């Protein structure tokens, strides 16, 4: 009889000490917060994407022609006609979608291509824009759209001094990061104290050029004919 009397108390004790039951507040709060965050993202996501798209379109002339020529173009009240395209690259049976902006002068002449790509950086995803000349032979410019690298170190990748190095680099060779004093044509100086961030950007660029050179050349050719 004594045993059966003890059982309910022990059961109750066990019940109260159950980890899952103890965490009921955390679990239900996580659910509620998760749902609200999903709603916020659903409502604001499109606005944020549009902000990024507007910024991208604003940056196209500078990325393709350089700052001075872009300012001249804006002063002359001219603008590129920008057509967004999606280019599918199939590698090892995996499809990868690249979003590419085709920029044409007002007369219809091809001004170049701007591709938006992202890849893993040191802290978070790095999202960047890369300008390519019409014949995909040189990189015309680089702009960092979104990054969360270490403030004061890795986030120097957004500065003109660093990203300016990429303008004019040939797409023929793989770019390489070196520490202190880039000499060869395909070398990029690392950001001091942030080799990983520098490596990430260069890796993203190399991979993109590798994937996109042929498809973009084809696209440029078919447009001409």
């Amino acid at each position, binding site marked *: 009889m004594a045993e059966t009397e003890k059982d309910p108390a022990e059961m109750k004790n066990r019940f109260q000490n159950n980890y899952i039951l103890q965490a009921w*507040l955390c679990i239900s*709060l996580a659910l509620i917060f998760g749902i609200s965050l999903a709603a916020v*993202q659903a409502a604001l996501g499109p606005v944020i994407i549009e902000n990024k798209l507007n910024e991208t379109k604003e940056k196209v002339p500078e990325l393709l022609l350089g700052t001075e020529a872009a300012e001249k173009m804006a002063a002359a009240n001219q603008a590129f006609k920008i057509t967004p395209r999606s280019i599918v690259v199939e590698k090892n049976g995996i499809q990868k979608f690249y979003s590419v902006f085709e920029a044409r002068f007002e007369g219809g002449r091809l001004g170049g291509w701007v591709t938006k790509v992202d890849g893993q950086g040191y*802290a978070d995803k790095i999202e960047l824009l890369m300008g390519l000349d019409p014949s995909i032979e040189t990189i015309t410019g680089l702009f960092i759209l979104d990054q969360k690298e270490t403030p*004061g170190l890795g986030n120097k990748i957004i500065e003109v001094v660093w990203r300016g190095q990429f303008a004019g680099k040939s797409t023929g060779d793989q770019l390489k990061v070196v520490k202190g004093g880039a000499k060869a044509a395909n070398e990029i100086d690392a950001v001091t104290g942030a080799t990983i961030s520098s490596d990430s950007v260069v890796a993203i660029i190399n991979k993109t050029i590798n994937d996109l050179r042929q498809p973009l050349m084809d696209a440029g050719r078919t447009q001409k004919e």
Partner: protein
Amino acid sequence: MADQPTPLERFIRGILPENPVYRQLLGLCPTLAVTNSMKAAITMAAAVAFVLLCANTVTSLIRNLLKPHLRIVVFTLTIATFVTIADRMLAAYMYQMSKTLGPYIPLIIVNCLIICRCEVCASKQPVFTAISDATGQSLGYGLALASVAGVREILGTGMFFGFRVLPATWPDWAVMVLPPGAFITLGLLLGAVNWYSGRGAK
């Protein structure tokens, strides 16, 4: 409850006597990082105020359900949610500002000021007290950020809120815009506040 401060006292204490930056030395990372312009400082202070107010309110509402050993998890969960909302709102409606502030908005999650108010006040007090505490602390934090940013922006660029206040001949002190300027300004202001209150005590 008798020796607990009233809601009004909580509110007033947050502004100066228990100012988060000058008295408690909390939330110093954004104080140093985003105060080279008034606009950035005010946006940061507003984001912190929003998170603090929401987190304090929610924590106070569920204070009777909290298990002591799980409370920090619940605080962090709550704070992270509101920080994410603030971050997304900025990215949607103040895109350029959200790029200027960069990772400092997500970093509000680890701002000790907020978890400190949840722990000290909101998890033990009714909602009204928690709200007035959050408002007072946010105002105090905003004032602290604005004081550092004001000094840095005026001395560093000769501008205030983007408008020129010093003559164009002013040699802009670039160092005030850079991180060392933040340390120097905060150090001097902290010293001034301490000197002033020490004088009052005599």
